[in-house]
């Protein structure tokens, strides 16, 4: 692949100090997102997938590691980033009910990024806002309405519009449809896919929904307790999952067609639950739930190896890289 990397995350760590100990929300995560690509980050609650997105956005600075966007280092909090960078990097939050200020009209919400970055001549802002509203397929008269009066789909469209307003190159999508009904989800996803082509965007798509991921991402990374345990191109990831956790997760996904059922790997019954962030098991943090657990698993943290070209996994079952080829 000769694609160009737009975002590179290396050795990213984010620890939170709490009164009961240190929570390692993100613990040594590395990946990169290519230009025009949708990179999917999957995990259950507590896996640290949203924290990765938030650190990239600078909502809090990283504890260690580096984040590079288009060749520029952005490993700092949002307050210390240049305006130009803020323009390039945007986010769509999970729940539009809380990401849109209930006391500001849709027009005001869409106008803010335009004004901050002086993206229209004075007096032309409302024109530009109307253009945004056409883009996200909202009637223009909604400009004076408050988000609280709208349905979830409309609200999320506004959030997407706000993210697009500055003309970004890279957008973090933090579970953009998990607060929506299935029938609405489809519309939002299609809108996002269309904008990606139209505006040359790259996405970091964070979700817990594997079925959705299958349909939107080119590459997928799967997180467990702050670490990426497997990373591969989407077709390879779903047809040949390696990590036991990936297999367990895939087995647990509820499906509706026999074709989907056939696609599932060797069934691994899900057992146990994700450990508390304060007492992460030693060694491989998945080992208490793993059906293939070995002696080494509770002692040594497995390192990420490129098992096949483009298919990385961190598991003692796959100790070394297979010959490159």
């Amino acid at each position, binding site marked *: 692949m000769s694609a160009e990397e737009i975002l590179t995350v290396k050795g990213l760590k984010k620890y939170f100090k709490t009164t009961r100990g240190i929570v390692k929300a993100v613990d040594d995560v590395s990946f990169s997102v290519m230009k025009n690509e949708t990179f999917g980050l999957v995990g259950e609650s507590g896996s640290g997938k949203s924290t990765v997105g938030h650190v990239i956005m600078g*909502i809090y600075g990283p504890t260690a590691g580096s984040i590079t966007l288009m060749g520029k280092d952005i490993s700092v909090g949002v307050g210390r980033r240049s305006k130009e960078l803020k323009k390039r990097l945007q986010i769509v939050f999970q729940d539009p009910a809380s990401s849109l200020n209930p006391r500001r009209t849709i027009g005001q919400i869409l106008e803010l990024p335009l004004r901050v970055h002086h993206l229209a001549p004075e007096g032309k802002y409302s024109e530009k806002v109307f253009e945004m509203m056409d883009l996200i397929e909202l009637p223009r008269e909604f400009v004076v309405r408050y988000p609280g009066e709208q349905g979830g789909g409309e609200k999320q469209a506004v959030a997407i519009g706000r993210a697009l307003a*500055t003309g970004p190159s890279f957008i973090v999508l933090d579970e953009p449809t998990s607060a929506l009904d299935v029938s609405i989800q489809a519309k939002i996803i299609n809108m996002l896919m269309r904008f990606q082509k139209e505006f040359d965007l790259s996405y970091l798509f964070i979700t817990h929904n594997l079925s959705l991921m299958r349909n939107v991402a080119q590459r997928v990374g799967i997180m467990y307790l702050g670490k990426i345990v497997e990373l591969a191109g989407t077709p390879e990831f779903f047809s040949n999952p390696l990590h036991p956790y990936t297999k367990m997760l895939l087995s647990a996904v509820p499906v509706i067609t026999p074709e989907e059922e056939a696609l599932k790997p060797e069934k691994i019954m899900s057992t146990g639950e994700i450990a508390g962030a304060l007492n992460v098991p030693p060694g491989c943090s998945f080992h208490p739930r793993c059906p293939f657990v070995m002696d080494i698993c509770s002692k040594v943290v497995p390192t990420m190896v490129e098992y096949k070209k483009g298919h990385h996994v961190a598991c003692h079952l796959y100790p070394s890289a297979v010959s490159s080829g």
Partner: protein
Amino acid sequence: MKRAASRKGADYGKSWHKFSKNYLSQAGLGVVALVAVVAIFAPYIAPYPSHAEFFVNFPEAHEPPNWVHIFGTDQFGRDVLSRIMFGFRYSLMMAVVVLSLVVPLGVVLGLVAGYYRGGKVEMVIMRGADIFLAVPPLVLALSICSVLTPSVFNAMMAVSLMWWPWYTRLVYSISSSLRNEAFVQAAEIAGASPFHIIFREILPNCLGPILTKVTLDAGWVILIGASLSFVGLGAQPPIPDLGTMVSDGANFLPEQWWVSLFPALTIVLIILGFNLLGDGVRDLFGAEAV
């Protein structure tokens, strides 16, 4: 699950409709409006405007309520009703002056402390507020007034000094929880300034509780002013302050009950009015209980 349409949306039209159907709140609004009108036009509508301050007419002293003096007369023969009407002026002035000093200050401090949550700014502001809140406001106000010369002005200053922390604490509790809301993060990511975030994103979400509290507090400030002058540490005679009138009259209990009872009842009426109105304001903004 089946809640009425979300109250979060700033649908003021519907809220106003709701307010207009709430008879208790309307009664409150009526009382407050009446008190304000009487206060403003007291010199024109009081039956005996000259009785407000220095006036002596001993032959008519201590007359029980009758058709000439509906609320009776006091020990100097002054018409109690007229004095109450003028008393409204001092009461309302107290509320207006104190709240217009206290609310902006307390709100801004609360917003700033909430925005810089976790830092030194927050610590200084909130610890300071806690110290002022360590004693009931009346007690500190009393002690401040006692070391100064008792007067309406000093009473206002003393109450103001005691009152700002309530707003700081109220606004802080809202703003510090909004600080982590996604919409504030979104504004930061867009590159908005702290000024924009504090006053355009966070403040509008505090307005409902603030206005509710302002309405309720108007009654309580009037009460604390009356309490100060009741003790003798606020407005001084012959100023027709409701608190002074109650305490003056108390010397003539139980025989001349009307001298203190009527001013006392009007205090109740004013507080009741602001309380009922405050509940209506809360509905209007769909705010949580303060």
